[in-house]
């Protein structure tokens, strides 16, 4: 029972981080029709910048901020240079975002070397606390709280602001929202920025959970993000949250039972969804 609680807590934490990365990817795809293959690299960038900033300053929130800024900054740059020229060109988008993926991987290896580096849990969030006889990691709980806060914030933006309304409408019917007078390019840029910043934030927080980070993070988490987005549904915020948490939980349970089965199981789930209902659990049909 104790183990179950710990696994669940860890699973939720991982799930929220996956949700952070996947929701940006999902909405970017739903609204802009772009599958950003560089997203995993942004996650990784966030983890590296944040870890480095924490080791340099000792201030965790500053470190998180640094991660967000790095991710958002790269996002803005990418949107201007390699995304805009290929709007509407599906093959071109895949190619350029793959290129960005390659470049970001190399930049990280260039700045921090190709091997893993340690990512310590920040002071103040270390250790466990005991609740009713159970020992729960403080840091994981922190992640869960952050995750909930961010989910609430995104939900607020999506449902209570004009930008959110425009995004939701645009995901359903990109052409109509332009007819109605929305400067879709500006909305794209904003959404891309938010999506990449969010992915970087997720990455910034995952370092201490893993204990160490390395260039493998980009491919591994890109794959997980794809799995979450496919299962949750392209363009669906709720979908990415539920699928993210689901995958996070499944991963943790399965890893404890029989580690090698974890990733194959994820991939199996993704394949099943792709073959049965490609739009995912909550996906919108449409997005013309």
């Amino acid at each position, binding site marked *: 029972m104790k183990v179950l609680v710990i696994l669940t807590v860890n699973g939720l934490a991982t799930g929220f981080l996956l949700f952070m990365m996947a929701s940006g990817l999902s909405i970017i795809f739903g609204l802009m029709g772009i599958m950003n293959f560089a997203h995993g690299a942004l996650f990784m960038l966030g983890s590296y910048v944040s870890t480095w900033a924490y080791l340099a300053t000792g201030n965790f929130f500053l470190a998180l901020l640094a991660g967000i800024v790095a991710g958002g900054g790269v996002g803005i740059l990418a949107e201007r240079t390699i995304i805009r020229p290929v709007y509407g060109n599906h093959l071109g988008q895949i*190619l350029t975002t793959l290129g*960005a993926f*390659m470049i970001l991987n190399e930049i990280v290896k260039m700045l921090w070397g190709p091997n893993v580096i340690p990512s310590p849990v920040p002071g103040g969030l270390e250790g466990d606390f005991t609740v009713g006889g159970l020992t729960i990691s403080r840091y994981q709980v922190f992640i869960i709280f952050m995750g909930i806060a961010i989910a609430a914030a995104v939900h607020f933006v999506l449902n209570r602001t004009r930008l959110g309304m425009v995004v939701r409408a645009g995901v359903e019917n990109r052409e109509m929202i332009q007819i109605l007078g929305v400067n879709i390019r500006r909305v794209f840029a904003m959404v891309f920025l938010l999506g990449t910043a969010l992915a970087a934030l997720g990455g910034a927080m995952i370092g201490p959970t893993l204990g160490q980070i390395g260039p493998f993070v980009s491919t591994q988490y*890109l794959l997980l993000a794809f799995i979450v987005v496919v299962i949750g549904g392209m363009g669906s915020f709720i979908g990415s949250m539920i699928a993210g948490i689901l995958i996070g939980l499944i991963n943790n349970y399965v890893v404890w039972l029989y580690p090698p089965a974890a990733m194959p199981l994820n991939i199996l789930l993704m*394949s099943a969804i*792709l073959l049965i209902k490609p739009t995912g659990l909550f996906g919108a049909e449409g997005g013309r």
Partner: protein
Amino acid sequence: MGRAVFRFPSINSVAILIFICLVALPLVTSSRSAYSMVNMIAISGVFALSYNILVGYTGILSLGHALFFGSGAYIVGVTMRHLGPSLPMLGLAIFGALIFAVAAGLFAGYLTLRLKAIYYAMITLALAELFVIFAEKWRDLTGGWDGLNYKVPVAIREPVAVYYLVLAFTAAVVLFTRRFLDSPTGKVIVAIRENEQRASSLGFNVFRYKLIASVVAGVISSLSGVVFALESRFVMTGILSVEKTLEALLMTIIGGMGTLFGPLIGAAVVHLTGDWLAEFAKIHPIFERWPILFGFVYIFIVLAVPGGVMTGWNRLAQWVATKSGPGKPTKGDRNE
């Protein structure tokens, strides 16, 4: 009085010339590193060529193509290691690799029927990573993260022997691919890339042709993996990974997608430039990450010069043809 006509050399004649030079190389030098460089270029080039059949000619973007390459290599490596480095065993391994390639190729081809392009890219990414994980976890068989080394049959131990094997293999693949692409089947495949709907409405069973392309690309890739395994005598998980597939993509784009020699040119560019830049790494560590340069070149080509090197060549050929007056039109490499 006739005008002297300068005919821009056709790509075929250049290719033949280069091939002859390569065949003669061992007469000029016995430098292992020279052989090694040619081998690497040839093997990557063939791998990229097989990838090009999928992406450049049929229009299928797979991110798991390294699976064929890696599986071909691993099957040979594992067999050589665990069952002994004899020719019969090698034959068995190659046979096994081919069976696997055909089966996987059929499966991959089947998937293109069910999935749209983006989903196909995603699922091939996932499957490739899956195999990387298998290779890592199955340490007893595959050597896991550290990789596996093994001996090869005596007949192929000499560097010169390996060298000629690689050259022969490359030539065979190029000739085969040319025949394949010029055949009616090949032409349909190109038509599918251009406009799938139209091809379908013209009565072609698009699915069947995609299946054929998948299998052909898979088998060639697998064989290049086999040759790689024989040349390097060492396999590791990296050869199954997404990064390996991206390497093929890079070479194909640089050399020219959808052209026969493009991938080989791309392979040459990448390896030679990489080697050259790696020299600089001795001066300053920043050059160790020379792949980053290729990332930029790659993006530049995708955005600005979609045709890669081959387009440049063809344009140059056309320009020269117009300048040198009436004469036979240049026989550029056939490309779409």
